[in-house]
C-alpha cells in the first residue's frame, strides 16, 4: 500500500504492508527509534506519538491509517540540539531513569498540556494513566509536567536549552 504522511514536518511516502504498525514504520523504515514497544495490548504507552497533534499509541495504529496525516515524535518536538519545555522539565525534575517509557511519556504529556495547559496534579495523573513507568513511581514525572505547564504558560516556550 502506498502511504504519504508528514513526520516531524517532513513529507514521507512509502509502500508498506497493510499490517505494518505505525510504531514499526517509524522505527524500522524511518529510523526514528524514540518510540518504543513495551507491551502488546495498547496498555503501556511507550509508543505514544502525536497524530494531528493528539496523543495516540502508535502500536495500535496501522501505518495506512496514518496516511495523509501528521505525526510528531519525541525526535521532532524541538529543533536538533534543543529541548522542548516538556523535555527540559523532565530533566530538571529527574522525571526519567531508564528512559524506556520517556519518549512516550513526553509525548503524552505534551498532548495533555495542549488540551489542558493548567492541569492540577490529579489531572496530570489521570492524563498519564495510559503511560506506564517502572522506575520513577511517577512522582517526578508528575512534577515535571506541572513544571512544564508553569514554564509554558509564562511565555518561556521560546527559550531552549542545548541538548548536549
Amino acid at each position, binding site marked *: *500500500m502506498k502511504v504519504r504522511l508528514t513526520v516531524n514536518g517532513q513529507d514521507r511516502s512509502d509502500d508498506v*504492508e*497493510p*499490517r505494518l*504498525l505505525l510504531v*514499526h514504520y517509524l522505527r524500522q523504515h524511518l529510523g526514528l527509534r524514540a518510540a518504543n514497544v513495551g507491551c*502488546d*495490548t*495498547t*496498555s503501556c*504507552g511507550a509508543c*505514544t506519538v502525536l*497524530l494531528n497533534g*493528539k*496523543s*495516540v*499509541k502508535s*502500536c*495500535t*495504529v*496501522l501505518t*495506512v*491509517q496514518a496516511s*495523509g496525516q501528521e505525526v510528531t515524535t519525541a525526535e521532532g518536538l524541538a529543533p536538533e540540539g534543543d529541548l522542548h519545555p516538556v523535555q527540559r522539565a523532565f530533566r530538571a525534575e529527574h522525571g526519567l531513569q531508564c528512559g524506556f517509557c520517556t519518549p512516550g511519556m513526553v509525548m*503524552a504529556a505534551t*498532548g*495533555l498540556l495542549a488540551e489542558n495547559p493548567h492541569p492540577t496534579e490529579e489531572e496530570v495523573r*489521570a*492524563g498519564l*494513566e*495510559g*503511560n506506564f513507568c517502572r522506575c520513577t513511581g511517577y512522582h517526578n514525572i508528575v512534577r515535571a509536567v506541572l513544571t512544564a505547564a508553569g514554564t509554558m504558560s509564562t511565555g518561556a516556550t521560546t527559550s531552549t536549552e542545548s541538548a548536549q
Partner: protein
Amino acid sequence: MIPAPFEYAAAESAGHALELLAEYGDDAKLLAGGHSLLPMMKLRLAVPSVLIDIGGVNELAYIRTDGDDLVIGATTRHADVAGSERVRSGAPLLAYSAAQVGDPQIRHRGTIGGSLAHADPAADLPMALTALGGSVELMSPSGTRTVPAGDFFTGYFETSLEPGELLSAVRVPRQPGADWGYQKFVRRANDWAIVGAAAVAGRVALANMGPTPIRARAVEQALADGAGPAEAAELAADGTEPGEDIHADRAFRQHLSRVLTRRALEHQRG
C-alpha cells in the same frame, strides 16, 4: 506482536463501505479507530482477511440533535463525545461514560460505533447506551434499521449486526437536567469495569454482570413502586449470573452490583 496479514481497503463513503462489505463478505471486518479490533488482531484472536477502513468517512463523524434525540455518527471519537457541549448537556451520562473509556490516547482514536459493535460487556459505552435507552442505526444496502440497545447486544462480544451491515449512528434520548449516576469499579483507572452501574431517570444498567450489559429490571420496578435507592439497589443482582475472573468471583460481583447500583441511584459518580 503483530496482526496476521490482511488486505486493506479504505472506504470513501458509507455507501462505499457497504459495497466493499458486500464484495468481501464474511472475511471482511470494518475498521474505524481500531482500538477494539487491532488489539484482538495483534493477539491473533481476530484474523480477518480484509479490513475495510471507515475511519476516513467524514459523513459518519458527527454529533447532531434530531428532535428529542441526540444522534452521534459511528466514527465519532470517544474524546469528541466526551468533550461535546451538545452531549454534555443533552446526555451527560454518555459524555461522562465516553470519558471513562481506556486512557486519553485510546479516547483519541477509539470510536463510539466501534466500541458498541465490539460489545464487551465490561465496557463503558454499551452500559451507558443500555441505561439511556438508546439505540443504534444499522445501515445496509436495503436501508437503515434502528435497533434498541436491549436487542443489539445479544451475547458475549456478540450483536445483532447482520453480515453486510454497518453500524452508522447511535441515538439516545435527550434528557437535559435528568439526575444520573455512574459507577465504574476498577483496580486501576484504565481498566475495564470489574462491575459497572449506570442510572438515569429510573433506568439502571449494569456492566460485566453477564454476557451483555444488562438492565437491572427488578431495581427499576422497585423504584417505580416507590422504593428508595438503598432498598431498590438490594435487588440489583437478582437473576444475574456474572462470570468469574482473577478480580472477582460471582458472589463478590453480585455484592458489588448492589453497592454500585445504590451509589449510582444516589447520583454518585466514580
